[in-house]
């Protein structure tokens, strides 16, 4: 049985329903990412789990015990969870040591043990040298680590993170992503991680849950989400994809604009005649010569070419005015204005319900 279960969870503010019957099961020790655009209800879901806001309907169960329902809510302080806030929420009047020790002291742990546990976690997060500093005297990355240490030291059953990296700069963000994953692997807490950054979710999560407008759009492993998006929304949101709209021709071919015919190797094969086809930038084959095939191929003109070090980013305008983005290795350097042929391998084309 799953350790953390959300069952038909619903939350409204006045007439506005922001979480609309969310169902989710998380196994013990897993890291699940809630991913979605701003305002889709990620933070609200997390705060429901933490117990900061009462639910209007549905249930939250931890280890089979109901902690939130429409009728009763166990207060946050009785849930044995930890949370890391987007703003870090470090207490500016306490030193790093005091911040981290706070949760342990509340548990009336003997002084010696507190000191020891705090030292352990501070060295795991490389903060030992900074124990006597105040948060105001730390850099952003260090503050973030203190907030991690403070959350981890109490050995929570569930760890909640709300966009923990969004205040950091790009380099630090990448570093901290790996750090969070490393600490998760070391301590194995059941973790719920909220973000709107796809790369962050891909790097850290065991399971990604894509939310949209208060509902779960799709959930699955990073590979599932990336390679087998269930809807156009998920495909677009995860990024790096081109979407073509068209009408279904037969079981697996879709007729797109200006005579482009795409045979789709996977995706929804039934449903309405209006269909979208998604294909990743890096799955498109780009060449300066036609390959002779009839379907899954088209001709276009390079309108932008950008050198990105490890690859080149192309924008190709095809017949009908549509723009296709694709990447090619660095050595494939085609100047702007040249005619190119694009091949969309059928096994990479995915038909999506619209």
């Amino acid at each position: 049985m799953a350790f953390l279960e959300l069952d038909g969870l619903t939350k409204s503010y006045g007439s506005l329903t922001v979480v609309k019957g969310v169902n989710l099961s998380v196994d013990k020790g897993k890291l699940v990412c809630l991913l979605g655009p701003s305002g889709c209800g990620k933070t609200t879901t997390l705060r429901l789990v933490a117990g900061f806001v009462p639910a209007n309907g549905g249930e939250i169960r931890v280890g089979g015990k109901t902690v939130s329902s429409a009728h009763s809510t166990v207060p946050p302080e009785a849930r044995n969870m930890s949370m890391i806030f987007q703003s870090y929420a470090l207490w500016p009047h306490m030193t790093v040591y005091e911040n981290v020790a706070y949760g342990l002291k509340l548990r009336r742990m003997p002084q010696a043990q507190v000191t020891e546990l705090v030292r352990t976690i501070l060295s795991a997060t490389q903060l030992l040298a900074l124990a006597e500093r105040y948060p105001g005297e730390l850099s952003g990355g260090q503050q973030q680590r203190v907030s991690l240490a403070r959350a981890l030291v109490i050995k929570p059953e569930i760890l909640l993170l709300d966009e923990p990296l969004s205040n950091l700069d790009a380099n630090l963000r990448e570093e901290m992503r790996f750090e969070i994953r490393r600490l998760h692997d070391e301590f194995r807490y059941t973790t719920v991680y909220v973000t709107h950054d796809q790369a962050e979710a891909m790097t850290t999560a065991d399971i990604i849950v894509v939310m949209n407008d208060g509902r779960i759009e799709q959930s699955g492993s990073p590979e599932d989400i990336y390679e087998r998006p269930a809807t156009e929304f998920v495909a677009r949101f995860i990024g790096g994809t081109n979407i073509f709209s068209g009408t279904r021709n037969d079981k697996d071919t879709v007729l797109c604009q200006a005579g482009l015919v795409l045979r789709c190797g996977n995706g929804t094969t039934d449903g309405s005649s209006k269909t979208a086809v998604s294909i990743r930038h890096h799955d498109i084959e780009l060449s300066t010569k036609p390959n002779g095939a009839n379907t899954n191929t088209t001709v276009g003109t390079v309108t932008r070419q950008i050198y990105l070090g490890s690859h080149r980013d192309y924008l190709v305008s095809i017949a009908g005015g549509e723009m296709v983005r694709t990447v090619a290795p660095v050595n494939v350097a085609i100047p702007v204005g040249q005619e190119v042929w694009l091949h969309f391998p059928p096994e990479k084309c995915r038909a999506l319900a619209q």
Partner: protein
Amino acid sequence: MTSIAQVQGRRSSIDLSWPTFALLSLVLSVLVLLPLFWLAYYSLRSDTGGGATLDNFIALVADPTLLRAYGLAISMALAVGILACLIATPMAWLVARTDLPARRIIRMLVTASFVTPPFIGAIAYEILAAPNSGIVNIIYRSAFGLDPSQYLVNIYTFSGLVFAIACFTFPYVFTLVANALDKVPSDLEDASSILGGKSMTTLRKVTIPLVLPAMLAGTLIAILQALTMFGSPAILALPAGFHVITTKIWSLFQFPPRLGLAAAAALPLLIITVVLLRAQKSILGRKGYTVLGGKSGTPRITKLGSWKWVAVAFVFCILSLTILLPYLAILKTAFTGTVGDPINFDTLTLRHWKFVLFEFSATQLALRNTFLLGFLTATAVTAIALVVSYLVIRRSVPGARYLGVLATAPVAIPGIVLGVGLFLSYANPTFQLYGTIWILLIAFMTIELPAGYQQMSSAFAGVHPELEEAGRIMGASRLRTLWDITAPLLRTSVVAAWCFVFVGTIRELSATILLTTANTKLVSVIIYDLNESGDLGAICVLGIILLVASFAVVFVANRVPVLGGSQMNARG
């Protein structure tokens, strides 16, 4: 090249920041340093004629009456600070962080008690709580059928004085703490709950420590206000048979005046003020109190549940003591013959109104002077504070920092000390300002400058410098940018600061009392004079006029659309 032509076609304006800086430095130095210089100078001169002497300072340590006055003043101030803090903190919490009913109205009422001049408050409490004629005691005696020597409360005591001052200084603590509580983001508290902290633990360990600087700052202001206050002690301490240092300095001005001793006696007040301000810094130490990080939630509200009625009773009690009862007492006295009279149709009279408005020749002049000075001071201080904080915050001129120091320095100069200093500086034949309203304007500007500066500079800190730089790179000069961009953005703060200074000016008494003359009477001074001759009815009428006029000005200033219709926020 067309572009070169374009560059030249542009108005190249002279950078006015250096001249402005020089002018302001001069103005501020004159305002602040000159009185201090003369104070020091006179304190080293003998009162009985003759040259330099240390006699005044020797008298200061040797004269037991001076020492006693200092002792009492300090203990009074500390008691006021503690009392104000004890009243204001829970109230601020209830208003800012709980589901107490009518929270907005309570905040407004507290602001109202801030507008009440403390000396009016003291007089109101004379009416209410004098041991024999006080309304409270009369009711108490008649309710329990006690004989005339019994009384419940006596305002003419040390504790009475502390109480009466605390009633009208607690809004400082209240406003600061309530604003600070508004700013503590919920996730700092959420972080404590999720780690296992119960509501009370969170309050104790996180919320309260975070508003500690505001509490300290507010308490410090209350202490300084009490220490340097003249009106209330003059009204309440003398009948109680003791001097505090301000009334003692005042008595040194009586015949035959002892200016040197007065100057010497004033200096320790300055030192105490500086020490207190430093102490505050060292208490706060290295800890940070400004909240770090990005977007954080709104403050969270505690549900009071069944405690609600206890809280309502507490708040009602405080508001009755600080607003309801005093205002009722003032109203009653203004409309009845003498204080002791019961209220019925026989005793209701407009006699005091007739006297104040039509018979008492000083009224109109004083009202005119008071409001004229209020307007002038508020406008001048706001303007100076605006420019000084611009120079300081934007560091546009090296050394601008010192302007900020100068503008803050008067905080450390108690009103009565400043009165002495200004009297000594400007009453000498070179300036001949004594007897004009200009000396009062100078005094008020000096006294109110720190408050104005503090408000404007915190407002400036909220305007990102890039907003101004964007204006300049688009081709607007420094002054044009200040006018087009910065000033409109600071509109509401400017209005708030203006109102704050205005109210502060018309309630000022301690420096005023030494500097007014027949032609420069102010309402606060005639109230004080009338109190000396015991005309309570007339005082209450004047008090009501003063209050109504202050409210009207504050109201209008905040409603005029061009000024931006915002609420007045007392010292932020």
